[in-house]
């Protein structure tokens, strides 16, 4: 039976994440950007909420949310601030990969990750442009009890801070997607000095070159039974895309509120369709994009793996497109005031575009001029 209405539990988690976003993340957004890091006290409080590091109870954590809950949590934390939300998300994603697919030995890391907020993991996923997981150029090859990991990953969160980097790579021999757990400082890992980015500085991203030899046991799941990570990697892309929608939603709410108070030509500017229609368009598209992400999360379980790349690329690219368009419309609504740092819309404008550059597939999101 068709049902696209979130159930009560999901709604509650979403509300909780939204209020944490509003009370904890939003006020710290500018500080996080200035410092290029999530402020320590904010990170600790976020850690304590249990939403930041998804680790199962048997490993000392607060439990792992189901995929729809993750989608909602990321979206609603990003409603507070996208950079802090994504910093927490990508750090938690490392723990989640370890928890879901790690070997017994790899599970040993979890207790520390679940209890010590200063620990960081990184997931190295993105490459040059929004390429589906099946097309990643980074490879891992297993030779006896050793493996060799070769490739370049772009915009790896916490590239210089993480004690473990979980690198997503293809194994050409097995014809499968794998994750390699690379310890910090392993020989052959080169973090490229980063010159900074348009936004999302708190994620502390940098490009990383890998040409690493490790024991084969570094494969996620272990040498004997390397994990099939394909579905989880695709989910990671969808969850990240949810952050674009949270950002977009917040931006249009802020713009709408501004438009009710700003007077021009004798009325609040919101009374002009030139102001209200773009915001209404954004609102409709955010709803549609959210449902597409929900649909894609479901489809990952329902559709054959060969279709996953395309459906995830399509849903993610659309969400990023909605994110960028909504945030530009929010800046536009504030006029000159939107262009000044006194208001946060310029931050969302930058953040949405920075997110969109990470994972937009040129074949799924062609250029369209404003007609």
């Amino acid at each position, binding site marked *: 039976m068709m049902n696209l209405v979130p159930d009560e539990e999901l709604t509650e988690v979403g509300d909780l994440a939204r209020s944490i976003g509003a009370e904890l993340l939003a006020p710290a957004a500018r500080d996080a950007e200035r410092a290029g890091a999530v402020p320590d006290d904010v990170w600790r409080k976020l850690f304590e909420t249990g939403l930041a590091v998804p680790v199962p109870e048997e490993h000392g954590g607060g439990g792992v949310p189901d995929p729809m809950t993750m989608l909602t949590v990321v979206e609603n934390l990003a409603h507070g601030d996208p950079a802090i939300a994504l910093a927490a998300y990508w750090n938690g994603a490392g723990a989640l990969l370890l928890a879901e697919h790690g070997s017994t030995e790899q599970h040993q890391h979890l207790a520390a990750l679940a209890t010590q907020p200063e620990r960081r993991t990184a997931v190295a996923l*993105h*490459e*040059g*442009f*929004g*390429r589906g997981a099946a*097309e990643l*150029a980074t490879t891992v090859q297993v030779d006896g009890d050793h493996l060799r990991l070769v490739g370049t990953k*772009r*915009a790896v969160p916490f590239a210089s801070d993480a004690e473990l980097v979980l690198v997503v790579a293809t194994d050409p021999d097995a014809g499968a997607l794998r994750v390699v757990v690379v310890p910090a400082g392993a020989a052959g890992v080169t973090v490229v000095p*980063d*010159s*900074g*980015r*348009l*936004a999302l500085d708190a994620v502390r*991203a940098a*490009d990383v070159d890998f040409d690493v030899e490790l024991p084969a046991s570094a494969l996620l799941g272990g040498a004997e039974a390397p994990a099939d990570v394909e579905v989880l990697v695709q989910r990671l892309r969808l969850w990240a895309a949810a952050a674009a929608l949270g950002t977009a939603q917040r931006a249009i709410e802020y713009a709408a509120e501004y438009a009710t108070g700003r*007077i*021009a*030509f004798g009325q609040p500017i919101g009374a*002009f369709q*030139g*102001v209200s229609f773009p915001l209404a368009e954004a609102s409709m598209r955010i709803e549609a994009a959210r449902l597409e992400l929900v649909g894609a999360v479901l489809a990952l379980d329902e559709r054959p793996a060969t279709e996953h790349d395309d459906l995830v690329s399509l849903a993610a690219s659309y969400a*990023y497109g909605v994110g*960028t368009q909504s945030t*530009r419309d929010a*800046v*536009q609504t504030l*006029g*000159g005031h*939107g*262009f*000044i*740092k*006194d208001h946060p819309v*310029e931050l969302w*404008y*930058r953040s949405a*575009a*920075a997110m*969109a*550059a*990470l994972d*937009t*597939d*040129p*074949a799924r*999101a*062609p*250029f*369209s*001029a*404003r007609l």
Partner: protein
Amino acid sequence: MYSQTLSKPLQDYSRQLREWSASECRPYARQADIDKRRPDNWREILDTAPIPLGRADVPEPDTVPTFEEGHWVSHFAFYENINYGDVWVHPTLGNGGIGHLVVQAMGTPAQIEKWYDDVFVAQRGDTGFALTEPGFGSDTSQVSTTAVQDGDSWVINGTKMYCTGGAFADYVVVFATIDKSNGARGINAFIVPRGTPGFTVAKENEDKLGIRSWTTSELVFTDCAVPLENRLGWSAEGGDAQVGKGQGGALSALAWNRPNMAAMAIGLAQASIDTVTPILRGQRAGFTPQRWAAVELDLEAMNAALERGRRLGYLAQTTVDQGAPSRTLSAASKGYVPETVERVIRHCMQLLGPEGASKELLLEKWYRDCKIIDIFEGSGQVQRIVVGRSLLGRLAG
């Protein structure tokens, strides 16, 4: 007869300007953005130009030639190609501010001689245009700055914000009402020279999303007295019947500058496409054939979109040069281009992936810079109202 080819001299000038701004000015773009001002050695940088730029800081005339197409078409080409290097360059030429355009449009012959010919042209002064206030931008009828006649002076009180170049201008054209009960008709323009007692710079520069190398100032006028003859369109003896007065005059003076802002946007977008194209070609091996085909179609579509914007701008400016200017066309050019330009630059970033948003390249900066173009000198919505009125009359709005 239709022709979409610029005359050979204008083509050559444009190409030289573009190549020069890209090779000599662009290398300073990042630092100008960080420092929030033009490079300290801007004069030496401008000295390397192989063509006249219309510089305000050199003794000998360095006038941009007027090509057979005429002044405004030449300037459209000028604005695109100088901004192709980066946005920091053109405000250093002394025409970043636009106060002199108002003088030219609304001044008496004596005022034009003094403030346009002498201060702006001969002395190559900087000018500012101070209309926007904290309480309004688009709706210029809300001017709350007042000017009250007191003997042989006008005494100005009020706050102006977002005045481009205001902190450094030799004079600022300030819009103030002399009679609030008279609505828009009460609004007049006054020349306030720098250093006039009561004129203070409350904030030299705003902290902005983009065009950070430009100065965007907040100005405060407290019992600021200027001579009667500083009221544009008037002399100490009274009004000059031959010149346009009030707000309307100001706005038509600005209308012809609007396509130039579209040209600026096109320059940034073309620079973005030209930055990513060779990078993508170099990475071609990493694309599947279908995806590479998509990339090529995108590059083609983006170039075509800019070309549409160019044609509109050239059409609008040609009508000005031919003496039959159209506000509608001018608004169409300024309304059509900026949002498409935002999309082009954003798409260029997306084609590159994470590298696209890195400060290693200037795409992220141009994405920040370009956003203002749909806001200032009449927002996208305001341009649509102007175009809409050509169809619907006053109903549009």
